[in-house]
């Protein structure tokens, strides 16, 4: 129905001929913008209501005195549902460490929480389909699980700022929200996110639409296609400083995939955009030493690059086998 609406607007009302570059770009732009904004509004609201049941305090209790492996897995999964904003990263980190949770388990949470976020998920679902969105979630959880285990094994406790270990977290009853308060929270949360991403979404879809309509079919194949062995590494390195534009980068990546960018390269790029965020690193600097930030970023970067190559390898063989 949305497609029909976009077609009507572009081809009938604006009288642009179907099949022209301008027509195809505009049609793509209107259809995707409306679809993504509908999805964003509805799904973020639903996700926020679910999230209101999983405050960080509950995550802390659920993780209890979980050790490695089980703890890493649970933390990676809780990272999906627990609301996270980088301004709360410090109290969350201290709360986890103070409760006796191993550093590696805490990091599994800190990797999963921003990586598997609803905005990236909606953009992937809307533009690539649910199978790719699910693949992304699974990959994000595995990345958080393994990243946390590696950090745990490295025994980096001495790289946590000393004052963190001295803080005592108070005990108290959990604040239970009424349904009304949950809906109000969800409404504010949705407004907040939409306000933050709308411009990036429009710019991203706009650029994606231009690529879709104007770029030659094989233009990506030349630079970032399967023929370039360094494509994944370059894609990830470009992505690291792009944080907060997750909403804007996914439509561009989708258009690039349409022009021949391999899926693994695309996934690695998107994951690097959200998983490694400069603002979060600056905030984490308050609780961990610079060396640990470097190790953290290093591990995530290498893991994402590996994931990118793995997917490219699997999909190429999948295609050859089919």
């Amino acid at each position, binding site marked *: 129905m949305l497609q029909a609406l976009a077609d009507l607007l572009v081809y009938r009302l604006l009288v642009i001929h179907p099949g022209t570059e301008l027509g195809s770009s505009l049609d793509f732009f209107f259809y995707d913008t409306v679809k993504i904004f509908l999805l964003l509004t509805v799904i973020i609201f639903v996700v926020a209501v679910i999230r209101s049941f999983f405050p960080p305090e509950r995550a802390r209790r659920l993780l209890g005195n979980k050790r490695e492996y089980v703890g890493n897995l649970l933390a990676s999964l809780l990272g999906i549902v627990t609301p996270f904003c980088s301004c709360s990263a410090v109290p*969350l980190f201290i709360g986890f460490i103070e409760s006796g949770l191993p550093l590696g388990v805490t990091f599994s949470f800190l990797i999963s929480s921003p990586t598997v976020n609803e905005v990236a998920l909606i953009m992937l679902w809307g533009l690539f389909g649910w199978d790719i969105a699910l693949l992304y979630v699974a990959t994000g959880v595995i990345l958080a699980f393994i990243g946390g285990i590696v950090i745990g094994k490295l025994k980096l406790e001495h790289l946590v700022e000393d004052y963190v270990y001295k*803080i005592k*977290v108070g*005990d108290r009853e959990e604040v239970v929200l009424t349904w009304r308060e949950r809906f109000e929270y969800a409404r504010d949360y949705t407004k907040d996110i939409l306000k933050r991403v709308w411009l990036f979404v429009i710019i991203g879809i706009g650029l994606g639409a231009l690529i879709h309509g104007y770029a030659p079919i094989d233009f990506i194949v030349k630079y970032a296609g399967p023929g370039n062995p360094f494509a994944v590494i370059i894609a990830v390195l470009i992505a690291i400083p792009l944080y907060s534009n997750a909403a804007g980068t996914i439509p561009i990546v989708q258009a690039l995939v349409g022009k021949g960018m391999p899926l693994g390269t695309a996934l690695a790029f998107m994951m690097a955009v959200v998983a490694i965020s400069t603002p979060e690193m600056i905030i984490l600097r*308050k609780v961990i030493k610079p060396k640990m930030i470097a190790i953290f970023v290093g591990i995530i970067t290498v893991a994402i690059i590996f994931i990118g190559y793995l997917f490219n390898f699997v999909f190429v063989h999948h295609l050859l086998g089919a």
Partner: protein
Amino acid sequence: MDIEVLGTGCIKCKKLEENVRSAVAELRIEASVTKVEDIAKIMEHGVMSTPGVVIDGVVKSEGRIPSQQEIKNWLQGK
């Protein structure tokens, strides 16, 4: 009445502090409003997601900006 607004200085925390102050002014209640920015003091209340509101030592909300009406209800002891 002793009101503490917990927050490390993010935008949401400032908004919450404004809301609390205007609710206090509107109801003409005798209350002290303090902004707590020290992380150790915030954690003493067991709050892991900011911003938070603590009234007379009891955590009323955390990780969200409560509505003006909600704040007024707390101030009036409802």
